[in-house]
């Protein structure tokens, strides 16, 4: 079955079983490898991405639900390499990743979080991001989310001026 949607601003059509998890379509049909497989059961968050601005765990979202929608993955989070999304900038500043495998999922979750809660506390971050990291980057993730929120605020102030 043909299914069309936009991914990182680009229109695509894929011919696939509509029940195929969006994760596999993004990774294997569209060759965007930044979105990761960790558990396949919506438990770890490695596959997190945005569909029409909402956060989803794409391993458990059949591709048919993306039809005619806008999908954003880690590759499309920043406008370009030089103007990083506040989350990615903060991740660079805090030197967050270790193995790096869980990080795209965390960053997608963080991007959504700072939209919902512009000035998150440690507790907000702890309660709202349930992704798994085995390398133990947790302390840096919490720091980086707060930093990202600050960067976002200051960007906003700048663009308002």
């Amino acid at each position, binding site marked *: 079955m043909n299914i069309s949607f936009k991914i990182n601003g680009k229109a695509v059509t894929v011919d696939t079983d509509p029940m195929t998890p969006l994760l596999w379509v993004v990774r294997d049909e569209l060759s965007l490898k930044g979105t990761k497989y960790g558990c396949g059961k919506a438990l770890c968050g490695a596959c997190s991405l945005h569909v029409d601005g909402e956060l989803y765990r794409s391993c458990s979202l059949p591709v048919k639900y993306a039809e005619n929608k806008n999908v954003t993955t880690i590759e499309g989070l920043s406008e370009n390499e030089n103007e990083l999304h506040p989350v990615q900038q903060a991740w660079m500043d805090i*030197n967050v990743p270790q193995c790096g495998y869980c990080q795209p999922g965390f960053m997608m979750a963080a991007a959504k979080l700072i939209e919902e809660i512009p000035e998150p506390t440690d507790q907000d971050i702890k309660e709202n*991001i349930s992704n798994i990291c085995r390398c133990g980057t947790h302390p840096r993730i919490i720091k980086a989310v707060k930093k990202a929120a600050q960067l976002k605020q200051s960007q906003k102030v700048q663009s308002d001026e």
Partner: protein
Amino acid sequence: MSKEETPEKKKKGFSRRKFLKNTGIVIGGGSLLLYFGRHKLRTFAAGFIADMDLPSGVSNFDPDFWFEIMEDNTILFKSPKVEMGQGIFTGFAMLAAEELEVAIEQIKVVPGSSVNSANDMAGTGGSGSTHSLYVSIREVAATMREMLRMAAADYWKVPLEDIRAENGMLLKGSESMSYADIVKNTEQWKTPKTPDLKLASSFKYVGTERKRIDLKPKVMGDAIFAIDTEIPDMLYAVVQYPEYIGGKLKSVDSSEAESTNGVIRVIREDNWVAVVAKNRYAAEMGKKALKLEWDVEKTWQQQDIDELVKVGNGRTVKLQDKGSASSVIKDDDIEVIHQEYRTSLGVHAQLEPNGVIADVKEDKAVIIMGTQAISFVKRAVSKAINMSSGKIEIRNSFLGGGFGRRYFKFNAPEAARISQILGKPVQVFRDRESEFTDGYFRPSSHHELKAVLNDDGTVKAISHTQATGDMGIKLAAGKMGMNIMGADFISAGHGAKFLYDFPNKKAYVEHIDMPIPTGIWRGVGMFPNGFAVETFIDELARKANTDPIEFRLKHLYSDDPIVKRMKNIIEILRDRSGWNTPAPEGVGRGFACGEDRKTVAAAAVEVQKIDGQIRVTKVTHIVDPGLVINPDGVRQQVEGCIMMGISASMYEGTYVKDGQMTATNYHQYPMASLMDTPEIEVIMVEGSAKPSGVGEPPIAPMAPAIGNAIFDLTGERQRKLPFQLT
């Protein structure tokens, strides 16, 4: 403590013949030209020293290519050790830049493959990469710099002294040439004697805070892991391994699987079944449709495992015997303090499941994967497809976590067989269920500790016996090696001995043949042994009515350098963590320390009950890994060990039920999340001029320190991992 200002002991030097031979550049007179002629970029390589320390495992059998100078004057560093998050690429780049006289940004580190880089026989692990290659990398880099200088001297026809190497450029007065230019203009290379290495006092990079060199790709989402690799016409396959402990494949009904949309073929090999499909989803659906029957000799239960893994049931090897611990402890008139401890089976749960791409042709096989041990993979693949190992190339990638999982357990042989049968490239990937249920687990363990105290509350005699399954010996040395050694004291024995200056002390490791494949897990024996020993020490301190830190310091007085370093960090930690200030209401405090591979570490932990649940709220951690190459790299490893320590001690365990493992995915194997992140302070001390490992030793104090803090808070002693919290 200050870094000693001693120059590295001078190596015999690369003899010209040996150096060139080891680089693989010269085999007979004309090959140097041939080599350069073949490669347009005129790569050249600096090879390896013949008399290197063994522990790195990097050997000089095959062409050993370390560095390639690229046309744009960047330097490709083909690392024999793999990056799995531990920051080794960053540390290596810093060491190389130091002697190459280039900006660190000029160095690009990539994982070496089995044919294009230095051969690594030992694999990446044991916290040994930096330690074992600290001198060698700099020697190779310095030698290459000198080769470039000599070539530049010849080019300009001036004495060598007139040539300086700076920032990737060769300078003669005001004239300059890039490294790449000189490579282009050089036909005949000369090799120097091994040059003197820089003294620590003139290090430019070593010891400075550096962001990871793999940071940007990992933030942008374009770091490539094995599972991300694609090659043209690649098919996808999933493998079903035995579903029961000791299961032997009896019958396969694959009709439904074969008729699943997208499935191409079902392959049955000796004890596994693979479903090959044109995409992953189809492969997974096909696997779900398999109907398999397994012959099972015994249906194992957790109780059987617990009864088996028990002191007294295995072959014993003595690790330590000082004084006369046995006779003191046996004396009937003396009160013996006796405790037992247990740890559960654990899984690695690294976030990237194993994925292997195999492309097997008539006379060549390419395997792309993320492995901690290229040489083991090569051997296994060679056997599986009956091809000489010279025809097999293993390419490594970034690893999405290792922790020991990728040392022995891989699906390369299966992938190679499937590709060989199909005559097509295939990616074989493990789903999370297979990662969780198909070994090699951290073995469970049972510990018996006994001690006798003197009247003044000091330890008169102590003994520790640990019973556990195999962690690596059987896998590395085979059954025969195992029989010779008796027990896996090399891996399992980490942390089993007593560092303390007890007059009578004794430690044993007992090998238990477990029915489940078990292996190495971050820290190997350190994790269970550290828990048992340091909890027992805490119990002794309480018995002696002594502050737990004071109690330890009392027993650290000898001149042994490690004992001195341990004493030093404990004192610093005591003062920095506020140990001697009264704990606020509702806060429990615990302390523990551990030594592993010449790195000493200690932690002071605070726990509180929050909403009815005990949580670690503060960790002050101190580590002395000798020379620190990259402080932020060390900090990351310590943070990782803190979080993994919290996770493994508070939550993690997998158990056996009706012949199967209870944890099949993350929901059945609870782990630390952001909720469990405490306030963390990491303190680093450099008690030696040489670096030792940081990937594992910092985990040593975590479990016992937390357990001791829980006791302080609740009065309930934790003698089992994971903790039994109500």
